[in-house]
């Protein structure tokens, strides 16, 4: 079971650190990260393994969302199934 975390917004110090910090707290392993910074805009997509999650996935989603609000970023945490089903026949 995997999930996708996307972070979009203005670049600041420690975004990756804070997001991966929450992942570690929930025992969620980061599998892959792709990120780009265009001028001062930061865009990151993180693929994480949630099969060993030590809590409720919805709590993780809430934590990520509130981190986004705190940092002024848009953070979405979604189960990978939605992308797989939408974009493949």
């Amino acid at each position, binding site marked *: 079971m995997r999930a*996708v975390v*996307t972070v979009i917004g203005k670049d600041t110090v420690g975004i990756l650190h804070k997001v991966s910090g929450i992942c570690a707290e929930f025992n969620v392993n980061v599998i892959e990260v792709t990120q780009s910074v265009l001028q001062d805009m930061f865009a990151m*997509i993180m693929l994480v393994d949630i099969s060993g999650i030590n809590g409720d996935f919805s709590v993780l*989603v*809430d934590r990520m969302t509130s981190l986004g609000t705190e940092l002024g970023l*848009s953070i979405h945490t*979604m189960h990978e*199934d*939605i992308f797989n089903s939408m*974009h493949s026949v």
Partner: protein
Amino acid sequence: MLNVYNILETIRMIQDECLDIRTITMGISLLDCIDTDIDKACEKVYNKIVDRARNLVPVGQQIEKEYGIPIINKRISVTPIAMLAAACPNESPVKFAKALQRAADTCGVNFIGGYSALVHKGFSAGDMALIRSIPEALDVTQNICSSVNIGSTKSGINMDAVKIMGEIVKESAERTADRDCIGPAKLVVFCNAVEDNPFMAGAFHGVGEPDCEIHVGVSGPGVVRAALAKHPDASINELADIIKKTAFKITRMGQLVGARASELLNVPFGIVDLSLAPTPAIGDSVAHILEEMGLEQCGTHGTTACLAMLNDAVKKGGVMASSTVGGLSGAFIPVSEDAGMIDAAVAGTLSLEKLEAMTAVCSVGLDMIVVPGDITPETISAIIADEAAIGMVNSKTTAVRLIPAVGRKEGETLEFGGLLGSGPVMPIKDKSSAKFINRGGRIPAPMQSLKN
């Protein structure tokens, strides 16, 4: 395989283009709740609904979190209540409406549909009492929806029922005149009603359906409009292809959510309804899709052709994306619930006549149309008869949801708020249809061959 472009496209659809799951609707059969003692029957109805649907809202919320996709409504449809009312001939069926309201409150759903009767060929026990009680039922409850099927391609149109429904719509508006005539906004008159429709106000759980099942209604006019906007110079068949691809993606999401809900609730998965359901929100309008195709305003010449193409392409794209498609499936054109339709109606570009033509090629019918408060019941019946005739002859579902704006005239507006939106009072013809309506009887079923 996951790729960055696809991930960002999905997020953009949800965040910027109003993509959502419009409704998860649990269909529940109440046939085993029939009892000659109406109080016992109501208790059974309440208990069965609460037992089956207790977790519907929490499960919906869990799926929203899991997939990051908003699920706007969680709803329930039930067996047409006229069938339960038939066993208690001396009691008012409004008791059932109140029991349904209690169940809606307990489960936290925003609508229960099925205060309904199917009278396309004639009235059986319970039907007349239920129909006569509709204005009171819609007045004393908030979250109950009612529908009556008055015609079908196989049986013709029951003109006695059409006459009565004109009176019921008017009476329902009068009883709720102090609340912007909200009564008839919860009442649909159908021809060829479908048994697995997840959308309100016309949802009911047909007798051919299983005991309990989950249906999903998807939405996404904003996504389709945005996809078309990227191809300003494409030909019409290229546009049709773009719509098909977009509808596929939208429907896949409905299929995923439905399958997950079915698994979590341990209830069989019914159907995905592939509809483009607009809301009054900016960027969530079917009219704006038609305008994106090249119409200056929805309702002008060419609107019917654009809508026909849109409706067909949505179905073609969606059918392959889902294991079982059903319900109403197509584009909805409810005037008060669509920002572009409201503008077109206010500007006078969109008339009742054009809407009627549009219903011949799209999903449902004359939906959420506000008419002057002094409209006669016979005129309402005549509008219903016209619309039912289109459905009957073309073997499709048509419906009428008219709201007589009591005390208001052409040019004024009714404000319902929320998803129901607001609607300008639209002009109607001032010549009478009373003699035709008062004849009663039945329009015979149409020929199914020699189609010209």
